[in-house]
């Protein structure tokens, strides 16, 4: 593993009101590492994720991204076009609601091909081939390639969203509750898929979830947030098996076991 961090986050603050948003968050993310951000609703997880993925300018703090070319980029001093370029080439963003991340009006194949077309691919045959490859990689039926995502089930939409993001071979993927709203069996399949893709593609992932089981399965390191602040960080197993902060203890003990 490279010693150069992919993402260097320093004292990021974005507050909508006192304790609403995220305050003073710092961490490093290394290539191939999966970082989980857990906490209750309203704890600032999603705000933090938006800041990290250059979709929401923070009030203060800095984020540096180390790109493929080896440059260290200060995210919020980049032009908007460079930010977008990063978002569609080196990054992926998987939204909680697939509808936010997909173009519902065009076919599944076009959804997968969009990023490639945006980065200059102009060969239909190649686009088609890549779309088919990714359909099967995320366990979608290739016969559905020309159907619109509106005709897909929730789980299928989520998998399509993942394919659409991974098609440009990003190095860093931001995921906001990717399994939220899915039933348990579909969730399990999606998690298996994610875990496989993350290992195969050596992806770095920042995953926001309120589901500790998801965090334990995917994340190597955890950040626990509460009321906009980081209350505990550490290796996932360490944090979940031996929680130090009172809130983390509460969180861990609140998990229902059937």
């Amino acid at each position: 593993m490279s010693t150069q961090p992919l993402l260097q986050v320093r004292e990021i603050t974005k507050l909508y009101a006192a304790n609403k948003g995220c305050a003073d968050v710092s961490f490093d993310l290394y290539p191939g590492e999966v970082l989980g951000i857990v906490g209750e609703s309203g704890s600032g997880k999603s705000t933090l994720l938006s800041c990290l993925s250059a979709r929401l300018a923070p009030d203060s703090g800095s984020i540096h991204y180390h790109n493929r070319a080896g440059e260290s980029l200060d995210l919020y001093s980049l032009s908007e076009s460079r930010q977008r370029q990063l978002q569609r080439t080196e990054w992926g963003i998987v939204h909680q609601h697939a509808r936010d991340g997909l173009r519902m009006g065009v076919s599944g194949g076009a959804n997968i091909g969009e990023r490639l077309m945006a980065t200059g691919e102009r060969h239909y045959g190649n686009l088609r081939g890549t779309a088919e490859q990714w359909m099967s990689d995320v366990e979608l039926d290739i016969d559905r390639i020309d159907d619109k995502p509106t005709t897909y089930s929730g789980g299928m939409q989520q998998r399509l969203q993942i394919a659409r993001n991974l098609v440009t071979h990003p190095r860093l993927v931001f995921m906001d509750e990717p399994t939220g709203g899915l039933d348990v069996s579909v969730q399990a399949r999606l998690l298996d898929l994610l875990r496989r893709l993350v290992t195969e593609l050596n992806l770095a992932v920042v995953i926001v979830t309120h589901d500790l089981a998801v965090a334990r399965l995917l994340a190597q390191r955890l950040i626990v947030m509460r009321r906009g602040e980081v209350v505990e960080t550490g290796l996932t197993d360490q944090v979940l098996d031996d929680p130090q902060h009172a809130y983390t203890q509460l969180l861990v003990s609140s998990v229902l076991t059937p």
Partner: protein
Amino acid sequence: MSSSPIRAGYNFAYLDEQTKRMIRRALLKAVAIPGYQVPFGGREMPMPYGWGTGGMQVTAAVIGHDDCLKVIDQGADDTTNAVSIRAFFRDLTGVETTEQTEEATLIQTRHRIPEKPLREDQILIYQVPIPEPLRFIEPSEVETRKMHALEDYGVMHIKLYEDIAQFGHIATAYGYPVQVNGRFVMDPSPIPKFDNPKMDNSPALQLFGAGREKRIYAVPPYTDVRSLDFEDHPFEVQRWEASCAICGSEESFLDEVVMDDQGHHEFICSDTDYCRTRLAQQEESA
């Protein structure tokens, strides 16, 4: 050419002078940034939106006493829309009007570019219903403007991709998106893609007016206009197996006309002036 008196109580070319200036300023900006949609304060015209109010405002802003105006609708000089707009400007400017492409200095058009190649001293004015080529995929105006600004045009190919996926070829036949001067993606108005190559490096100035959407854009003379396509599905124009039933042309854009209740049909030139000119030449040489 001299102009005859205009209808009493009206300013030359209907619009007041300040409005014409405002439109000319927008036009100058549009010419300076080929393909960029310039917002302008569109005025109410004495006819409904969708009938060519944008094109008429542009015509009113650029027309002068020495101009000779031709108006076509779907290539024809004799359809209701073309006849009324021509009559409107004859009444309110007194300038000469013509049906012949080579005589005209201004040509206001809906859905076609004349078959006869245009010259440097001619201006082609298009009536545009929806100026935004990205609208079909992105309903937000704020977002489409940003996409233009950032040259974020990946989505344009999605439409073409969907065509091929669905029909096996690029089935978009009109309003076929173009990139102007290597920068802005532009909707060429609902002209058939048959006419797209005529826009490329045209000696004539091309102005576009969208009345309802209140946008003006332009392609200056001799500007690169490229139709979007895929490497393995290159841009192609329509071809017909038939030729024009009146003049026999095999090169022009043909309209299909139903002849009777038995389903017989014929193809005729959509450009009436082109067809008439050819016919006259054939009769002369016969």
